[in-house]
């Protein structure tokens, strides 16, 4: 079994993986860039090793630095979390070649699924429907223009090595295609080191539904039901739920079978997620497969009563999946809300220091946080601060619980998308369960409503009026007074006179 686990990540996912590791009696070791030495995840683990100075690319994204950290930490296993190097076959290979346990699928499976053009061909061969798209051999502008004509506009230009919507753009007319291709190639080259792009038919108002799958080395491969991920903004998920209100039993079964088929096609071992698009005619298509833990994995955990990270660690150590996993059935309804540090109006990432932080609690509430009171939020990293996961016997009660918990959550010092999350929960489309990926774009635009009198009064008191109710704004740890935040002063997207 694994004895000492290096968690090659930061933020909430590092904390979450560490929790399960400690429960299993595994020593959890954090990594951190020097600028991140005071980060929340570092303080939550049994031990921590530095990745040295530098940008994220030089630290959390550096295979040599991480391998050196694993060596210094005397780790015998590495969990990559999500993002960063979690889907990097080279890192997986380096870990295994160093004789350590890689908590994830094989480097081969990562490569196979990481090249979106190859994975689409593979899926088609396995009989899994894929979104209509350009021929794998279409590479030149001329070929792709021809392919676009065949597929029919609108199309999406996508990076073959991409994921998470990065570098993706919509094109509606032939004449716009060359410029979009050039731009996408440039972005793909810089982000993934691979300029290959391809086209996909753009489905209007699709549902984004994904299935959790899990395989072990004994050849078991099962699905663990779906997650509805259609509440997106700029191709970034912000609210997920399970079960999906868009699926009825028969459709769910067919999609689940396709997901398992997709995993089987590459002999998948470990936790993976098959993302599917569901169009308005109830046809579904393979979109991509994520060969790692998803951000939204907790909603599966709470409805099934399982621990996916524990299973990852056990399968990585050579165990088989628990027998009863093949017979699991979901109970109740779960919703995840992602809290991002961002300007509520412009929706751009924000930085700052969290001056006050209170988590919701009580029945049916789970919080996976990557920050706490006193944490500094930097623009260098993903702006996800924490996830709120609520569960209840039915969807209506889960939404009510989400509202209640959101109302208890206090985050002061860094602006967040709290108001947008509340707006999603309140929207008639979300309440009805009949919504697609355009839900967020149909919400009333971000605005700056006037604060109520009580807020003005509290603010004035905090600025030093009588009856001041101000919390201490110094670093929670005491010490040398306020650290200046270079971006703390500016207030988002401003156009001056």
């Amino acid at each position, binding site marked *: 079994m694994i004895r000492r686990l290096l968690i090659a990540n930061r933020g909430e996912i590092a904390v979450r993986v560490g929790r399960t590791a400690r429960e299993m009696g595994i020593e959890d070791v954090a990594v951190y860039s020097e600028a991140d030495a005071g980060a929340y995840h570092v303080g939550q683990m049994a031990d921590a090793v530095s990745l040295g100075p530098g940008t*994220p690319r030089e630290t959390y994204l550096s295979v040599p630095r991480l391998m050196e950290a694993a060596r210094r930490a005397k780790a015998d296993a590495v969990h990559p979390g999500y993002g960063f190097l979690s889907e990097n076959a080279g890192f997986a290979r380096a870990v295994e070649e160093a004789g350590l346990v890689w908590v994830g699928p094989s480097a081969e499976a990562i490569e196979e699924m990481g090249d979106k053009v190859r994975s689409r061909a593979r899926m088609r061969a396995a009989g899994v429907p894929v979104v209509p798209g350009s021929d794998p051999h279409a590479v030149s502008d001329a070929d792709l223009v021809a392919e676009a004509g065949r597929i029919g506009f609108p199309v999406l230009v996508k990076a073959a090595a991409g994921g998470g919507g990065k570098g993706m753009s919509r094109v509606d007319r032939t004449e716009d295609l060359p410029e979009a291709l050039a731009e996408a190639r440039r972005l793909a080259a810089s982000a993934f080191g691979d300029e290959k792009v391809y086209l996909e038919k753009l489905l209007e108002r699709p549902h984004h539904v994904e299935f959790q799958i899990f395989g072990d080395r004994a050849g078991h491969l099962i699905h663990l039901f779906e997650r509805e991920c259609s509440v997106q903004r700029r191709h970034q998920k912000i609210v997920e739920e399970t079960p999906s209100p868009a699926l009825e039993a028969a459709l769910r079964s067919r999609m689940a079978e396709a997901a398992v088929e997709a995993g089987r096609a590459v002999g998948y071992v470990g936790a993976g997620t098959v993302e599917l698009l569901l169009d308005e005619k109830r046809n579904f298509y393979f979109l991509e497969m994520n060969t790692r833990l998803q951000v939204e994995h907790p909603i599966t955990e709470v409805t099934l009563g399982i621990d996916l990270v524990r299973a990852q660690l056990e399968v990585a150590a050579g165990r088989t999946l628990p027998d009863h996993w093949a017979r699991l059935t979901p109970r109740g309804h779960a919703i995840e809300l992602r809290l991002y540090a961002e300007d509520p109006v412009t929706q751009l990432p924000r930085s700052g220091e969290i001056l006050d932080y209170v988590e919701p609690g009580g029945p049916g509430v789970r919080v996976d946080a990557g920050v706490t009171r006193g944490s500094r939020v930097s*623009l260098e990293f993903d702006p996800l601060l924490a996830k709120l996961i609520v569960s209840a016997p039915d969807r209506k009660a889960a939404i009510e619980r989400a509202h209640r918990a959101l109302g208890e959550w206090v985050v002061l010092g860094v602006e967040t998308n709290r108001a947008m999350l509340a707006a999603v929960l309140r929207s008639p489309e979300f309440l009805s369960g009949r919504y697609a990926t355009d839900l967020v774009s149909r919400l009333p635009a971000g605005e*700056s409503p006037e604060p109520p009198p009580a807020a003005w009064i509290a603010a004035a*008191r905090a600025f030093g009026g009588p009856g001041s109710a*101000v919390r201490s704004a110094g670093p929670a740890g005491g010490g040398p007074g306020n650290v200046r935040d270079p971006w703390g002063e500016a207030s988002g997207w401003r156009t001056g006179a």
Partner: protein
Amino acid sequence: MRLESGGHIREVRLSADSATLDTASHVVRGGADGASAEFLEVDGVRHRVRAARRADRVFVWCDGDVWEFSAARKESAAAGEHAKDLRAPMPGRVRKVHASEGESVVKGQLLLVLEAMKMEHAIRAPRDAAVRRLTHREGDLVEMGEVLVELSEPPSGS
């Protein structure tokens, strides 16, 4: 004192048991009556409130919503279509400049692309105008709030 939040500006005056917002007077009770329960009763209605200050900004959590306040500056900021200076919405690098000084641009025209850690951001003309000054070249690093493009004056009266 004069406070600003999200473009709204109010003159707030506090006394022991009341507060005046601009000209409206409110009866205020409570607040800071205990460490964990922070209440503010305004005109007989109880609100849950927490506030935190950092330098010249105050963050207020009130009944689940959050607001950011700062001391209002004398000159109220023009915004949107009336803007003269287009500023960087985040720190990053100027990826591409699509306009040149002196050029006449139309509303919505792409002027410049800014790249930060995880995203690109297009800076477009908020109105028909002439580009008076481009402060950065491609590849330059810019800080949040820095002026990127200076436009001609907006027409008065609009």
